[in-house]
């Protein structure tokens, strides 16, 4: 086959197939959760006192009168068309709800990963260069603390200290109370929308609201990024080309940031992309603590509103984004690094 088709087409085909198969697995799981696990999905929608007619109509509407494989096929078809069902809580199509809340999560996760990279990579490099010194141990320990921290608790403590006690930072939410209705959502990303409106006051307000949750998520990803940077950098500094460069008198800074960094760029990119995926997930707990109206808060609110279609829709979207990030990163890695072939 590879003789007939150009190799890039084959690669793209492989990526597409991989995404499709994993999506199939995801949908199988969400189908099992939403249709087979609840004792009676009709009861999840109607109350116990619903009439027999209403129950029959609901069964018909949910497609429960079909055999299970047919139900699954219909389910895939619905998702494929973008029909994730109606939210029981908001009475809106789940997909519309998700589109509305997604930018908030994206904004938070993006600022988080930026902080994670900007702090984590230099820390990892420093740890590798000063291997086994006290500073290396401190950095490793700080990372380990990040690994072990219950993020929701750290968020609550952050709010307690910096908002309630010191009053340095604003409280939960994406903007102060008075501002919330004044922003016309264009992209849904506050730091962009406020700038588009030309309102610098609101922009800085949005930034100040971002500081605490984004730093928290950044710390969370920093733990992983700095650790991976350290170990990747260490593996390079042992190489002979580094020795050669040193012998030739290349300045150490240039060896590290130019030669070694150039060689670990590709795996480091993978690490950062993977952390980005984790952050989308980590935002579930962070958003709950900071009342940040994004995907995570939408999912948890839906759980307590007994809104199973919304929970499953949210799961599918998070899973989809996660799968796309993972697969593309993997493909990019193979594309950029010929050794991986």
């Amino acid at each position: 086959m590879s003789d007939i088709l150009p190799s890039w087409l084959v690669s793209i085909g492989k990526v597409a197939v991989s995404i499709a198969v994993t999506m199939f697995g995801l949908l199988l799981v969400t189908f099992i959760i939403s249709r087979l696990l609840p004792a009676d999905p009709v009861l999840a929608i109607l109350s116990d006192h619903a009439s027999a007619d209403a129950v029959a109509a609901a069964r018909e509407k949910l497609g429960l009168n079909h055999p299970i494989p047919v139900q699954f096929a219909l389910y895939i078809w619905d998702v494929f068309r973008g029909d994730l069902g109606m939210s029981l809580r908001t009475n809106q199509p789940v997909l519309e709800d998700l589109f509305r809340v997604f930018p908030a999560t994206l904004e938070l996760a993006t600022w988080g990963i930026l902080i994670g990279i900007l702090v984590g990579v230099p820390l990892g490099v420093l740890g590798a260069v000063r291997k086994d010194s006290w500073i290396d141990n401190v950095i490793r320990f700080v990372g380990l603390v990040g690994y072990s921290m219950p993020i929701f608790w750290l968020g609550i403590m952050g709010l307690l200290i910096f908002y309630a006690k010191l009053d340095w930072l604003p409280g939960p939410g994406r903007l102060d109370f008075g501002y919330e209705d004044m922003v016309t959502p264009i992209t849904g990303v506050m730091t962009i929308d406020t700038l588009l409106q030309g309102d610098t006051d609101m922009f800085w307000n949005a930034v100040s609201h971002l500081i605490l949750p984004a730093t928290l998520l950044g710390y969370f990803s920093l733990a992983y990024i700095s650790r991976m940077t350290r170990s990747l950098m260490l593996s390079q500094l042992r190489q002979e080309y580094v020795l050669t460069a040193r012998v030739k008198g290349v300045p150490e800074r240039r060896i590290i940031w130019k030669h070694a960094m150039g060689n670990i760029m590709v795996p480091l990119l993978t690490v950062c992309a993977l952390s980005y995926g984790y952050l989308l997930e980590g935002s579930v707990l962070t958003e709950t603590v900071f009342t940040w109206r994004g995907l995570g808060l939408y999912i948890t609110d839906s759980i307590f509103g007994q809104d199973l279609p919304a929970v499953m829709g949210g799961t599918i979207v998070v899973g989809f984004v996660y799968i796309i990030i993972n697969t593309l990163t993997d493909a990019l890695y193979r594309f950029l690094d010929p050794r991986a072939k």
Partner: protein
Amino acid sequence: MSNAVTRGWVIALTPPHWRRWLLTDTPQSRRQARLGRAYLGWAAFARNPLAMLGLIIVLALIGMAIFAPLVTRYSPVVSGDTIADRFLPPGGDHWLGTDGHSWDIWSRIVYGSRTSLLIIFMVSITAAPVGIIIGTTAGYLGGWIDTALMRLTDAFLALPKLVLALAFAAALGAGMENLILAIAITSWPPYARIARAETLTVRNTDYIAAAQMSGASSFRILIGHIMPMCLPSLIVRVTLDMAGVILTAAGLGFLGLGVPLPQPEWGSMVADGRSDILNQWWVCTYPGIAIFVVSLGFNLVGDGLRDVLDPREQ
């Protein structure tokens, strides 16, 4: 190698004739060789102060769970006087204070360690066997069974764990069993991968061929000859995952999908104290510290184990 490893307080404290017997280059029995290797591993582990700190934390957790009635003065579930004992600050009889239900926080943290350990234990003995069965079957039988099982594993690996556990817990309802099930369902894929990789390395060895020729069934070979080979690396991985299990369980508990009240669970204790944080900071703070310390302990032990067993990082 011997220079790097044969230092440290463990070696120094061992009586010389034991040390000689353990570190001999010519062990007389398989047991001696095995003990010698374990001894060297333990010596290397013990030289790492952070790993030892982790071990102390984990042992303290287990001790707390076993001796809970001895280290507490109050019941974790029977509340005190609902007016006089409500929200007592730390100090005095309730040295971590009491919460809004007039429960003693120290007691609930101590008894909560039983909940945490039970969750870790149940998740491990549920997820690890599933992973080992799927992984060894796929690796040993090969062919389309391998492809199908590994695709399934990959699909699960590519899914966001917490969100999936959340969805499971939401569909199944709150409760200890469902919490354990939700975490186990999302934890088995890495174990399946490890078991498959181990299986592939032993599948074509002579002793498996000998077993096949003497007429052993696939089932028998899998159970008796392949699965035991997968256990060591699997156990290490399960240990490494324990901190993650603690954090996931606490996160689900925090979201209200964990163990229902009054049973003590640290995540739900944090959630419980959240609304009173401004005036009664201790209700929310101490359980969070407990989650952090215990998960740090497991992470430190896991890191130490990995350093000993996988020296490539050095």
